[in-house]
């Protein structure tokens, strides 16, 4: 099955797996909400991506990207941007609501870490949507 996938498609699957493996436990378990843990997660995703992308490049002889790859990539970025913009508007709206209602205490360290998680989560969701949109684009008609 791997030989029927283009280099770009294999790269996308690897990215998606890496994101789910590294970010999934953090957001599902959400036990250690610290700056060090977030930094560790970022380093982990970078290392895992380097390993996976290098392995795919090593086993793939033909690494050509063509017009169809570029078109699918553009669609992915569009979906990812729209997702990020929507989540940001939603997040800022909730932030404004809670601030005006007095629910929010910005002198609380935990509140700062929750915001870090929330906005980081928005970036990750948008990136996953971008990657998934591209994978769907390869499987369906354009």
């Amino acid at each position, binding site marked *: 099955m791997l030989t*029927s*996938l*283009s*280099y770009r*498609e294999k790269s996308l699957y690897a990215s998606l797996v890496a994101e789910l493996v590294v970010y999934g436990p953090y957001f599902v378990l959400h036990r250690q909400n610290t700056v060090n843990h977030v930094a560790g997660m970022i380093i982990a995703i970078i290392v895992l991506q380097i390993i996976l992308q290098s392995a795919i490049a090593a086993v793939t002889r*033909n690494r*050509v*990207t*063509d*017009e*169809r*790859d570029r078109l699918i990539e553009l669609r992915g970025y569009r979906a990812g941007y729209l997702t990020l913009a929507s989540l940001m508007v939603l997040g800022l709206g909730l932030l404004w609501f809670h601030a005006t209602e007095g629910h929010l205490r910005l002198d609380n360290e935990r509140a700062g870490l929750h915001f870090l998680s929330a906005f980081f989560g928005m970036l990750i969701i948008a990136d996953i949507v971008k990657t998934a949109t591209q994978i769907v684009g*390869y499987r*369906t*008609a*354009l």
Partner: protein
Amino acid sequence: MREITQQELADKVGVTRQTVIAMEQDKYSPSLETAFKVAMVLGVPLEQCFQYVPRGKR
């Protein structure tokens, strides 16, 4: 029409083999430049390679 493998056609046109497969399966409509290149490599007129059929009539 010349006999040629998907990989050979892809290499000569400058696309991936998966794009050639997508074109054959009607999952992708190439750019005009790529369509002309495909016709040129196969040695046939453009309209012999690509036909337009409206979506409702497919």
